[in-house]
């Protein structure tokens, strides 16, 4: 049955946000509902764990709440407790879930042999053993104990490490300790200079 024009106009004016706002208040207290939407539950109810993350991009250090289900992320939002961001995030921080779940993410070890035209998958343990051997070889081949005048340097210029600013303090500490303090690598740098 068709509604009368006057009813339709009236309903439109009541329903349309601009006249509602002009009236000075929200005519409808509740949100839009349907039979279907009444069965919906917040996604966060499915989370079985939540932790505090720090947004991985710039150095402002916004806190995030990371909601997980079966150790997979289901939602990430700003942590309202943080005096740094008080619950807010910028477009990058708000997109963190998209980064973690990006289809372009790679979850396997890839190896490219010299002169090869292709990547190939290799086991993680194999790669770790191979990298350890190559590191030892490069370091041993290039290690200098003394300068020609007899002064001690105990260093190698043949191995280098780049990166660290995207990583944790503990990770940086171990890089400098192992490569610098252990192997004698001096060329250790990160994004601080770029």
């Amino acid at each position: 049955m068709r509604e009368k024009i006057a009813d339709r106009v009236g309903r439109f004016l009541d329903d349309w946000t601009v006249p509602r706002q002009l009236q000075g208040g929200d005519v409808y207290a509740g949100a839009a509902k349907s039979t279907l939407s009444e069965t919906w539950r917040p996604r966060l109810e499915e989370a079985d764990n939540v932790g505090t993350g720090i947004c991985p991009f710039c150095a402002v250090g916004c806190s995030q709440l990371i909601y997980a289900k079966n150790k997979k992320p289901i939602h990430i939002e700003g942590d309202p407790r943080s005096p740094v961001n008080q619950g807010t995030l910028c477009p990058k921080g708000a997109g963190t879930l998209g980064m973690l779940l990006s289809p372009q993410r790679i979850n396997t070890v890839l190896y490219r042999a010299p002169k090869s035209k292709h990547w190939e998958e290799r086991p993680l343990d194999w790669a770790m053993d191979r990298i350890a051997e190559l590191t030892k070889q490069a370091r041993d081949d290039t290690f200098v104990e003394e300068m020609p005048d007899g002064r001690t340097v105990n260093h190698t210029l043949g191995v280098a490490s780049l990166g660290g600013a995207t990583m944790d303090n503990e990770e940086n500490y171990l890089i400098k300790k192992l490569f610098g303090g252990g192997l004698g690598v001096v060329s250790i740098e990160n994004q601080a200079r770029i």
Partner: protein
Amino acid sequence: MALWDLENADCIVVMGSNMAENHPVAFRFVVEAQRRGATVIHVDPRFTRTSALADIHAPIRPGSDIAFLGGIIRYILENDLWFKEFALAYTNLAHIIDPRYSDPEQNDGLFSGFDPEEKTYKQDTWQYEGKTVPSPVAEHRVQSKEKSEGGDYESMTDSPPPEDRTLQHPNCVYQIMKRHYARYTPEMVEEVSGCPKETFLKVAEALSRNSGRERTGAFCYAVGWTHHTVGVQIIRAATIVQALLGNVGRPGGGVMALRGHVSIQGSTDIPTLYNMLPGYLPQPVLFKEHDDLHGYLQSETPPTGWWANTPKYVVSLLKAWYGEAATAENAWGYQWVPKLTSDASQLPMTLAMTNGLIKGQFIFGQNPMVGAVNVDLVEKGMAKLKWLVVRDMAMTETADFWRDGRRVRKGEVAPEDIDTEVFFLPAAMPGEKEGSVTNTSRLVQWHDGVLEAPGESRSDLWFVYHLGRRLKALYADSPLQRDRAMQALTWNYPVKGERSEPDAESVLKEINGYTVADRALVKDYKDLKDDGSTACGGWIYSGVYPEEGKNLARSRRPDAPGEQSSHSGWAFAWPSNRRTLYNRASADPDGKPWSERKKMVWWDEAEGEWTGTDVPDFVKDKRPDFRPDWSKHPHGMDAIAGDAPFIMEADGKSMLFAPTGLVDGPLPTHYEPVESPVKNPLYGQQFNPTAKLWGRPGNELHAPQDPRYPYVFTTYRLTELHCGGIPTRIMPHTAELQPEAFVEISPEMAEELGIEHLGWTVVSTLRGEIEVKALITERMRPLTIAGRPVHQVGMPWVFGPKGYATGEPANVLLAITGDANTSIHSTKALTCNIRAGRMTPERRP
């Protein structure tokens, strides 16, 4: 200063940063300050969203920052607007400089002590008269030559530096600065920077007005200041303004560095940097008296001020690294720490790679094929490596250089020609691992691991720990002396779970430090000793984990909203959970707050100690009227008076004039960028004479005023895409918002060159050329420099061929040149050419 303390500023200058777009969440505090009445100023070549929200936008030509800031210094001095009680008491304004000092005003742009052959300065003529002043910054002590004429730091224990508080002595810092900046007039500022002098004066007036007992101002900067051959001096110029106006160590005062990566501060503090050991201790150098530990400590320990504690931090670090093998007999294993023989930072590293000196390279979450200058040279260097290990979360331009590099795509080289063995190891991301990161205001924040890293992704902690375990096994039986360090290295971190993930908290505890005998955690760096009884991996972080089960980086108790507070229960700020460094300066020389409105730390006479809303940055019970007893040649903090807040400096005074520590001069001086379309209007010396230049084929520079490259070129970031890395370019929604590279030019320039909006252009330098679409916008303005129009070309540098958001890297165009003090590359001010159209297909990558 803490980020939230920006709310308390009465004037904020954002310069060298597009804060609203690149640090948007921190910019909330600027907006809040403005709501409370602060004047917000944006000094920047472009009109950006930061400018749109500012009260004043001052346009300047890239690379003219020191002329602009020097103009402000002159304005403050000439009009007598400095905060006298503060600056006279707390800075070296009245100190008297060596009579042999001579200024760029006398030497056409050079300071005294310049060696034209070596292109270096000797700093002996810049010293306080009769003194040799050690630098408070260890990494700078390693480079500088203040002791070249037989100077002795012990001279600082004889008497306080000579001063004339009437400021009449012709060689006092005040008079030297007045002469040095006399020609930095508003007219000169306009001629050099292109900023109309009326606009410049508005900025100078707003800053000066918001100074004194009741008011403070802050500067916010980012890499728009550091990425120059004079980067350190630009920041120095701002610190001079701030110290003159009394904007240091006080609520709403300071110079806020807006740094780019989540833990770039942490990776500077606990550094993955070549020239420093954890906690800003210098890496030993062959060319200093570092042959043994005694010599190293002798030459690197300032006798006066807080740094007199250096030996405690060094010995505790060696104990943390080498454990039981570090003994008094072997000088705690000092000789196992490798010595530097040259600058080994990223730029020389790139050249060393290109020269075939580097055999193997690790890359952790960095992408030099997009983020490093002179991309084609980087690519050539990669191909010289025997092996390359890249750890990241998606394929990067760097890992794939042998298959998809620019040279490969252009057909200049084929994968079959490249011998490099390449490993791509997938990395766990935040949420998939736990650990601490340090934000731009020294806040050490723990993050929880609540997710499982997918597939074979592992944390970098896992990678380094298990690589170390393997290497220790490989070296275990070696009889060679050179392998002793690997054998001695302590490497016992508990692991957990099926993946044997090392316990990050156990590493943080080692950084915090412990007493060797019982492995009890130390509460503070004041507990550290130089006798081998304590171990500490990073002294400035001591106190982050003061007792078992108490990880303060995890602390999550913010103060109530709306209060002016330090949020001391939220995470841990190094050192000692202090939120504002040098906060003794928030009280007057007598120890009373400068004003009720700006109080932070003050002397409590009844209790006999310093107290306040932040952890006082001073000896807790040192009275404001304490004076050193010079008859006893005082050392350490005994040589610091009760009214000298800057305790890391050798005499506790802020250095307006830096007698030491800088390789390119004691006062900021305007030099043109190495590549500039104009002649230096101030001096015959065109650019920083000590700038690091590496001339070689493939890294050619444009001569000043080269007619082939007449335009100023500058690069920057975008809100949606984060730096050169891959994470945001593979993030669907940010990539959709910024899908493609572009170059920004003004309508006037577009008209002159026949470039259409969204039409193709070719941008070229002697390093390379790229094609990229044009965005024609009034955000870019031609500036009038020395009477003629200069066009500017701007380009976001965040694009590369991979991911969803693609384009040629701007860094193809840039040369390898370095800041004189830090070797930071120059990306903000160079020259280029641009034309409408496309490249011929055979030149296209």
